[in-house]
């Protein structure tokens, strides 16, 4: 399994994602300006502040040349994970439903949160079990997941809600405590918390590794 991690101007967590992915497979960085996925089996759009979050989070990054390739790759079932800013980019690009709005506190918050696994059959959660709690840090200013109610109903009905904040852990005010959603096929997942920062007990938790292991299990 080879992971490709996209580097935009302003990405911050791409090296962390690279290093995390290398625990379960091969990984390399992909350049935003190259319309080329270099034959990787899974793409990660990392956290950070692509284009400085200017105008609106994820708004400018979605037009990068690499994004066109990622859209095609996702449409043919390719594995795509958007973490934090990557989630915002995937929503802006229309690969996932909904949008991310400013936290109700309007502040950046960096905190370890407990997440409930709601769907363990997506490409990125296959190594988890439903109901299990993952302890993963979240850190963002714009992480309040929003979609109109009918869309939320549909996401829930289709099993596209992948992770939820545990009771009391939804600090950003996300609708229905949603922390992660997928596309209908389950190959594209976006989440606000940072699994790449939870791959080593020494730095707090290794629960995030399960997302990378899940992808590594998917037959190429």
């Amino acid at each position, binding site marked *: 399994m080879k992971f490709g991690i996209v580097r935009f101007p302003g990405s911050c967590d791409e090296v962390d994602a690279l290093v995390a992915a290398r625990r379960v497979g091969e990984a390399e960085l992909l350049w935003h300006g190259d319309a080329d996925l270099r034959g990787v089996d899974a793409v990660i759009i990392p956290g950070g502040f692509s284009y400085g979050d200017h*105008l609106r989070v994820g708004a400018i990054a979605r037009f990068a040349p690499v994004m066109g390739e990622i859209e095609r790759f996702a449409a043919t079932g390719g594995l795509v994970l958007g973490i934090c800013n990557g989630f915002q980019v995937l929503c802006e690009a229309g690969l996932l439903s909904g949008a991310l709005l400013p936290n109700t506190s309007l502040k950046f918050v960096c905190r370890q949160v407990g997440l409930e696994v709601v769907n363990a059959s997506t490409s990125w959660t296959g190594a988890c079990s439903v109901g299990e709690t993952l302890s993963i840090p979240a850190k963002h200013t714009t992480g309040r997941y929003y979609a109109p109610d009918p869309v939320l109903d549909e996401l829930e009905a289709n099993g596209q809600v992948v992770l939820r904040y545990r009771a009391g852990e939804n600090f950003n005010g996300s609708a229905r405590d949603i922390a992660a959603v997928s596309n209908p096929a389950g190959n594209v997942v976006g989440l606000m918390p940072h699994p790449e920062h939870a791959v080593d007990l020494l730095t707090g938790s290794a629960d995030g590794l399960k997302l990378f292991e899940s992808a590594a299990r998917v037959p190429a």
Partner: protein
Amino acid sequence: MSRVRVLIRPKAGILDPQGQSVERALPALGFEGVSHVHVGRLVELDVEDTSQVAAMCEQLLANPLIEDYEIQS
């Protein structure tokens, strides 16, 4: 060249904590009788072809799922 302004605001019905925070702060400063505060974005630009601005809004400047926009030229 024409100077164009795009006013972007959160769609009605979507929680606007920024607006709420301004609304809460005003009475503390002695400003009473203020309500329905909303905070959005202003984009000003010089364009050669004003007919393009709506497309710019749809594609980049606003996110139609969460925002309404208005063009002033």
